[in-house]
């Protein structure tokens, strides 16, 4: 299954190179960036059990550092993600020394505080962070790589896709190392891990630094795609979007975050273009995943066919029950017909949920 998914991912990433539509390339580049970002986030959430609300700090600051290095020293563009990753690691060494002293709830709150601190500092020092406009690069200005200048989006996308595959492979290899198994042990039973001689805080710190490296790579991939890094890149909104993508995809399987990233970018482009209520649907879907499918979409796919059918049907019925009244509310009129559709659907959804639980 993982091998099949990996092949599908590589083929899908290669697809837009043959069409050469700029919107398609930009969309796929965004997806590839979020895939790397979500996979790096899952090294924390899935493997170490650390819920972070400040992961964008590492990707954003890595991208800022890479943008400055690129503008000042003219580093070849294909090597830029490494620089961003190393810068993010340095940031993680500083902040991680504070945050990884604690786990669980306290860790989540500390990362939230650090995230807000960095986001506020970006506004305080406009000289380095570029204030409102951010820091821009011209990706064609670096030394060219054989015949490629990376000016056209197609060449830049090829670079992003290659880095996406390389980073995903590296993270897959990392998730099979003894280090990652230790992180799993710290997640499941920190007292026991400490008893056999591995300090949990140290393991958490190492995992955070490793995860920050890949987050920095993701930040630079986004920088290569849009040629801009601004205060949004370190903000809370970006941190929460990667959290949502990872949880929706599923933290239990390695490929879960990939599915989540693909779904989130697809729906954020497709649904946001037709409905203003898109964040509402995302929030409700997130709540549904947390309650009804804690293993995420990847976990749903692994269930047997019968409960999968029930689950899909239930989700669809709930979807109708939610979408109809929300759209009616947004349109500014509360219609009796909307409730006539929504209420039976909600009741049917409740009944289906009960059936599924009874069947399990």
């Amino acid at each position, binding site marked *: 299954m993982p091998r099949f998914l990996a092949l599908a991912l590589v083929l899908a990433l290669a697809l837009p190179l043959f069409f050469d539509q700029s919107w398609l390339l930009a969309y796929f580049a965004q997806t590839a960036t979020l895939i790397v970002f979500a996979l790096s986030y899952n090294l924390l959430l899935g493997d170490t*059990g650390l*819920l972070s609300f400040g992961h964008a700090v590492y990707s954003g600051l890595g991208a800022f550092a890479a943008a400055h290095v690129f503008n000042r020293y003219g580093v070849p563009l294909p090597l830029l993600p490494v620089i961003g990753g190393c810068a993010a690691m340095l940031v993680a060494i500083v902040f991680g020394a*504070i*945050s990884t*002293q*604690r*786990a*669980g*709830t*306290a860790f*989540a*709150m*500390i990362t*939230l*505080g*650090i995230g*807000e*601190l960095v986001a*506020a*500092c970006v506004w*305080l*020092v406009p*000289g*380095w962070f570029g204030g409102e406009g951010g820091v821009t690069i011209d990706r064609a200005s670096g030394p060219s790589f054989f015949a490629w200048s990376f000016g056209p989006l197609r060449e830049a996308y090829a670079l992003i896709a290659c880095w996406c595959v390389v980073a995903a492979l590296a993270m897959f290899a990392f998730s099979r190392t003894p280090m990652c198994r230790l992180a799993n042990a710290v997640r499941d039973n*920190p*007292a026991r891990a400490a008893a056999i001689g591995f300090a*949990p*805080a140290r393991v958490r710190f190492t995992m955070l630094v490793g995860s920050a490296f890949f987050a920095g790579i993701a930040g630079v991939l986004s920088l290569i795609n849009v040629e801009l890094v601004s205060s949004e890149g370190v903000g*809370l909104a970006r941190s*929460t979007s990667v*959290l949502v993508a990872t*949880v929706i995809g599923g933290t239990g399987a390695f490929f879960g975050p990939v599915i989540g990233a693909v779904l989130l970018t697809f729906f954020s482009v497709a649904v946001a273009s037709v409905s203003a*209520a898109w*964040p*509402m649907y*995302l*929030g*409700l879907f*997130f*709540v549904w995943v*947390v*309650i009804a499918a*804690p293993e995420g979409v990847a976990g749903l796919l692994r269930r047997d066919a019968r409960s999968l059918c029930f689950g899909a049907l239930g989700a669809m019925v709930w979807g109708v029950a939610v979408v109809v009244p*929300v759209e009616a*509310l*947004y349109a500014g009129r509360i219609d009796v017909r909307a409730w006539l559709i929504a209420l039976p659907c909600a009741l049917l959804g409740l009944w289906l949920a009960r059936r599924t639980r009874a069947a399990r």
Partner: protein
Amino acid sequence: MLQWFCVSLLNGVSVGLLLFMLSAGLTLIFSMLGVLNFAHASFYMLGAYVGQALAAYGGFWFGLIVAPIVVGMAGALFERLLLRRVHARGALGQMLLTFGAAIVIGEGVKLAWGLGPLPAAIPPVLDGPLFTLYDASFARYRVFMMSIAVLMLGALWLVLRISKTGLVVRAALTHPATVETLGHDVPRVFTMVFAIGTALAALGGVIGAPLAVIEPAMADAMGPIVFVVVVIGGLGSLGGALVASLLIGCVQTFAVGASASAGSIAASLGVTLPPAWSALTVAQLAPVLPYLVLVAMLAARPRGLFGERTHDA
């Protein structure tokens, strides 16, 4: 100087008490259910909106009393119908659920009341200055706010200390299994505590709204500060939350009024800063200061002011 100090201190204490109304509920919920309610600031915002809507219907006092009840019931429903279903899965699932609830409440507020800011009216009785202190007037509304906060928290403390319900709640905090064996319905106590915590947050929203505007971003502005307060005070410690609330309230108010700059402070310490940094005034740094205090506190004392030593270290 003395005048500025006194007024800033009073303002700081009033902001701190407002913060404590939120952090008290958050701390109670955390120590009881083991979950840091990420949607707490959203219930605060919901309280402000519902209070405004009710005030337009039946006057300020009607909104002040009814809005916390309405939001508290919404909180109870949330705990009973959703949060309880993920309780067995541990802190991570619960925190994710409350995070999702924060998104949904934030979007729901936009759906129901629109994106624009709403004004919050102050009743004429509470408008105007109450007293002047060294030629500076102090607003009547702030005194009202402080007294409501002190009254509510005093009542909460009394209920927890004296009444039998309070005894059950305090026992359920530390020994839920034993309390259940003695025949008390611990899950119902959980629901009640969650309802009271969210009602307190909503009350904070109703009385805090006239100091700012009611807008969909108010939860995002308030939430991180309240979490900072709770972590600085030590997770699960009510006394710590009180001290940290007053500390953060005063730090923010004093910083806004201060005229020193980072460069002059660094110069008095014998350090020179790069020009980009030294031009920053303390007033500009005010939004960052709570987080700086948080980082400094955690570097020095990872468990917070009055927090207990945890097992995850």
